[in-house]
């Protein structure tokens, strides 16, 4: 499978007459862009903003991040989600780089939503503070979940994807500045030198723990709750086969942008043919019952063994009971004789003394840790808030609270905030971005 | 160096003046000898004894060092010390004692 990713670096974003890309500048016709957003009747109010690194802006509740792209030939960027089902990971896709589309609720947030600061101390906590962002801030008529803590955010997330596809079409007929060829030939056809290198698989455990439709990560539009671990080509993941869900405490979340750019996959590609033979991605999931967790772990170990993997990296989207899936998977791979490394965050509590994962096993002896979900973060007020600051305290964001005996409310009158890392939008960068680790103090 | 010996050294130095004293060590081990030199020159390194923080700077040698050895009657040295000289790590001891002496002794032989 071969994917050619045509990159268009975005140095500046501005509103203007016509949506177009020229010499690093993305110009957006706001009215036309919003009309794409309003294609869904559930969107009752929408606006677009542009934010850049260093802007004194706080975004909350942030629901999703997407890289704008165009699929050559006009097929859906997210097959099975924004259009018909088709093979992702093959052919040509164009991407607007160094930017993302951020989707922010105009009023209402939920457990799974997060916060981004574009400047100051808070900016170090999320990758998206480093990007130029087109912010869709909107409200919907999804009354059934307005006051619910768990929100599907369906209308907003889909609007974000439509908007990304719309922006992607700006480079439809243009030549990319740079083309990256991502190619892994069929495993059986790989040349002899590769055979001498150790085979490595990447095992992903995207969030899939809701029984009800509409909350989980999707694979080609299919709810990952309903799947068993399966072998995927890494190109599929990078090319829109996977989209983010709306369920997990936000710092643990993998946004759709994260799937499209997955640093662990990129790193394995870099090492392919140099130090290892990248066999592929085993797409697993996270489950609610023990039997399901064990079944998935067993499937993962079996697929990895069948492929002849000597090494594996496992990444977990979440914490709490999914740690049982994570540990089960690490143990199953180790027991199959495969050297395994895990990547996850931890929950050591505000004081740092709690047990890092809820399920642990001494066989999991090589772990990368990307942060503590309960770490307290205190940030000064920001000049501008896009969305609604009160959502952090009011709507049950996983890192916010209405009141606390010791700490007071998450949102203070002067606009300063105190929250748990939990609410940092994709803050733990488990897909590989994180420059955070955990240390003993 | 135990607390009693520290007290004795301190008293003698007060009585006769540190410039008029010479401490000769007979310890069998390098580290302990070094500590003893330090104690009578720069003060008790463990800070537990009377010499804690007291910098006498005394001249201090190990009995195995040539300066002392040459001053002793050969027969006596042969009878009393030479056996030990064969089983001890003489170089180590001398090296250690010398190091501390050069660092802290204000007086020499």
């Amino acid at each position, binding site marked *: 499978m071969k994917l050619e990713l045509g990159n268009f670096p975005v140095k500046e974003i501005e509103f203007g007459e016509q949506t177009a890309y020229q010499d690093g500048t993305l110009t957006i016709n706001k009215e036309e862009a919003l009309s794409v957003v309003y294609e869904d009747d559930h969107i009752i109010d929408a606006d677009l903003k542009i934010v850049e690194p260093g802007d004194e802006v706080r975004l909350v509740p942030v629901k999703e991040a997407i890289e704008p792209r165009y699929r050559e030939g006009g097929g859906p960027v997210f097959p099975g989600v924004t259009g018909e089902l088709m093979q992702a990971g093959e052919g040509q896709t164009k991407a607007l780089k160094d930017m993302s589309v951020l989707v922010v609720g105009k009023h209402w947030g939920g457990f799974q939503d997060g916060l981004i600061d574009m400047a100051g101390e808070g900016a170090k906590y999320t990758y998206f503070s480093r990007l130029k962002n087109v912010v869709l801030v909107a409200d919907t008529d999804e009354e059934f979940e307005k006051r619910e803590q768990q929100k599907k955010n369906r209308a907003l997330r889909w609007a974000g994807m439509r908007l990304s596809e719309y922006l992607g079409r700006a480079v439809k007929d243009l030549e990319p500045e740079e083309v990256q060829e991502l190619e892994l030939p069929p495993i059986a056809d790989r040349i002899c030198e590769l055979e001498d290198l150790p085979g490595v698989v990447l095992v992903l455990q995207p969030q899939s723990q809701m029984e009800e439709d509409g909350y989980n990560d999707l694979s080609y539009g299919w709810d990952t709750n309903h799947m068993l671990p399966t072998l995927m080509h890494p190109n599929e993941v990078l090319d829109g086969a996977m989209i983010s869900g709306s369920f997990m405490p936000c710092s643990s979340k993998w946004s759709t942008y994260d799937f499209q750019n997955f640093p662990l996959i990129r790193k394995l590609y870099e090492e392919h043919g140099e130090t290892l033979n990248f066999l592929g991605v085993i797409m697993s999931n996270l489950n*609610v019952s*023990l039997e399901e*967790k064990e079944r998935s772990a067993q499937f993962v170990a079996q697929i990895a063994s069948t492929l002849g993997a000597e090494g594996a990296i496992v990444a977990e989207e979440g914490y709490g009971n999914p740690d*049982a899936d994570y540990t089960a998977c690490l143990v199953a791979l180790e027991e199959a004789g495969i050297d395994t490394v895990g990547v996850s965050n931890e929950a050591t509590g505000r004081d740092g003394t709690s047990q890092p994962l*809820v399920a*642990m096993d001494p066989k999991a002896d090589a772990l990368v840790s990307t942060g503590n979900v309960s770490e307290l973060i205190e940030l000064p007020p920001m000049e501008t808030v896009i969305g609604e600051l009160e959502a952090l305290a009011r709507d049950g964001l996983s890192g916010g609270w209405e009141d606390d005996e010791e700490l007071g409310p998450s949102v203070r009158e002067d606009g300063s905030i105190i929250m748990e890392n939990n609410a940092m939008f994709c803050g733990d960068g488990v897909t590989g971005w994180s420059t955070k680790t955990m240390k003993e103090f | 160096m135990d607390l009693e010996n520290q007290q004795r050294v301190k008293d003698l130095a007060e009585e006769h003046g540190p410039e008029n004293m010479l401490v000769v060590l007979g310890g069998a081990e390098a580290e302990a000898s070094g500590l003893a030199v330090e104690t009578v020159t720069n003060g008790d390194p463990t800070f537990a004894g009377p010499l804690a923080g007291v910098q006498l700077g005394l001249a201090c040698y190990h009995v195995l060092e040539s300066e002392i050895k040459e001053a002793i009657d050969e027969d006596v040295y042969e009878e009393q010390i030479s056996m030990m000289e064969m089983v001890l790590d003489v170089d180590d001891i001398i090296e250690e004692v010398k190091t501390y002496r050069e660092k802290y002794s204000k007086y020499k032989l």
Partner: protein
Amino acid sequence: MAKEIERAGITIVQMANLVPVAKTTGANRIVPTISIPYPLGDPKTPEDEQWKVRYTRVGAALDALETDIEDQTVFKVG
């Protein structure tokens, strides 16, 4: 939590689906349940079956409370 209650000298049985989690946190008497969102009654099954599951599993937990154990024990149900 089970550990702290047991430390206080109260005999406790933990009913949990995630046996590895209960084990890691140090619970001593463990009775498995059927899932996380519905430990004691699968909504997809008829009422009487859910009742049976609940009655049997809670019964097993009561048995566990009356059982002397030497080590951390996961009690079998049914």
